[in-house]
């Protein structure tokens, strides 16, 4: 149990450091950290679908888009930002059911292409419709207020996204340590055996997909107000691929792994921006090396 204490201590210090960071650093650091927090939410969500349940989802950006556009459109129509979150959640669930319902029975690689296709369709629809602002997207999305305080500075968003991450961690953790989370893992390990143990695999796969989509959807709502602009370019296939990349890099199915992956994903390009063109080449090399030397991801294995 000594171990537990050390863990709590480390967590405490980490939290304190995060909370006072804005006092001691500048906008740029805040921006990068906020971005990292944002990706952490997306990663934790996808981690439920891919990491826990083993469903290869390449269209995560679609749900992120649903959240962002829902908030963008509704807030511009004058509806309170906070009200748009539950609406976005409902939409995410409905869409997840529509797309997941008939396709989740597919084998993983077929599922991958269906979700990829779905992600592209979503982006193209957003690009082609006028309600979503076409290719230019929505701009000038008003910033919300929170108990009379207008949220608009990067420091505000920093805290808002941090709270979001904390909530996402708690939800992920509790789901993982529950009957629901275990059911997802059973499905990932052996679908037939899970079915034989009385788990309705179709239903649980759908639930995993829905929960993952909810994280992305809610993340999208906050993204919209932070950027104050939403455009189809933010929902490219690369966006989905990046989130997947982050969780595999960090360590799939592991919460700290997902967080670490998200952090690295955001940090790497910023740190190496100065090397310019060769930056992504370097990133590719690092990626391959990490995978070769730590195929299970950077975060260490839990079980013996």
């Amino acid at each position, binding site marked *: 149990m000594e171990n537990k204490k050390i863990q709590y201590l480390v967590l405490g210090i980490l939290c304190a450091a995060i909370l006072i960071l804005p006092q001691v650093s500048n906008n740029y650091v805040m921006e990068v950290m906020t971005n990292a927090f944002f990706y952490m939410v997306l990663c934790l969500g996808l981690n439920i679908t891919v990491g826990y349940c083993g469903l290869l989802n390449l269209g995560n950006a679609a749900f992120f888009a649903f959240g962002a556009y829902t908030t963008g459109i509704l807030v511009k129509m004058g509806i309170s930002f906070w009200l748009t979150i539950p609406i976005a959640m409902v939409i995410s669930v409905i869409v997840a059911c529509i797309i997941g319902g008939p396709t989740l029975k597919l084998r993983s690689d077929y599922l991958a292409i269906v979700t990829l296709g779905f992600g592209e369709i979503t982006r193209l629809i957003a690009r082609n419709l006028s309600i979503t602002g076409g290719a230019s997207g929505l701009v000038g999305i008003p910033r919300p207020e929170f108990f009379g305080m207008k949220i608009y500075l990067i420091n505000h968003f920093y805290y808002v996204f941090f709270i979001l991450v904390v909530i996402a961690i708690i939800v992920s953790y509790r*789901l993982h340590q529950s*009957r*629901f989370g275990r059911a997802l893992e059973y499905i990932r*390990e052996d679908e037939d055996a899970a079915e*034989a143990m009385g788990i*309705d695999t179709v239903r649980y796969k759908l*639930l995993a997909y829905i929960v993952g989509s909810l994280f992305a959807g809610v993340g999208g709502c906050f993204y919209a107000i932070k950027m104050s602009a939403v455009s189809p370019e933010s929902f490219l296939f690369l966006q989905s691929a990046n989130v997947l990349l982050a969780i595999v890099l960090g360590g799939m199915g592991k919460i700290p792994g997902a967080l670490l992956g998200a952090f690295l994903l955001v940090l790497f390009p910023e740190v190496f921006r100065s090397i310019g063109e060769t930056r992504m080449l370097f990133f590719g090399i690092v990626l391959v090396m990490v995978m070769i030397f730590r195929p299970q991801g950077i975060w260490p294995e839990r079980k013996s």
Partner: protein
Amino acid sequence: MAILEVKNLTLRFGGVTAVDDLSFDVQEHSITSLIGPNGAGKTSAFNCLTGFYKATSGEILFQDKSVMRMKPHAITEMGMARTFQNLRLFKNMTVLENVMSGMHCRTTSGIGGAVVRSPHQRGEEKKIHEVAEECLDFVGILNKKDRCARNLPYGDQRRVEWARALATQPKLLLLDEPAAGLNHDEKQQLMALIRRIRDERKITIFLIEHNMELIMKISEKIVVIDYGKKIAEGTADEVKNNPRVIEAYLGKEDEEAV
């Protein structure tokens, strides 16, 4: 009273008829065996009973209710549990987690409960742990509960599978070749365990086996199939001496000496 009744069950894969108009029943609290040559359709029949294959025609009654159109998980929930011919453990999870899966169908809490950690959910979690540990104790590997399933010796992996099936709290347990790959000693233990499951837990046993010694010793009734059709049925002695069974399955005893 029959806990399981199979009537005119037929299963076709394209041209192949794996199970052909098969009828038999399994009496409550009995140990019944299904034997037959390789490819006779035994595993296929099991897969129909447990909902993994959709039978082409016929009827399956479990406790007088039809399970023909039910999905595997619903059948398990009704009280029919199975093991697989080739081990199907959750390899990267612990032994305990493996067995906890069995309790899934006996509990109800969902996402909401998990997120808010409701008292109901916590109560259930406790119960899941208790039952799982009890089942592990029953098969004799409680001391290995925190090991990763993948790293256990084969014999122990088999036990995990049994404990997992027991944790679903079944009324009928289907075992597909439980003795495959076990040596003589382990087979003896297996027989004892099967009897204990039946006697202490009041669970009906229905099993597939190629090991004649085990079959003949523990079965109260044996159903023999060949090419998906029933060719004999009865007690060990009746079956053993049935010429059709000898020809299709047992072979001539003295030839074993080759």
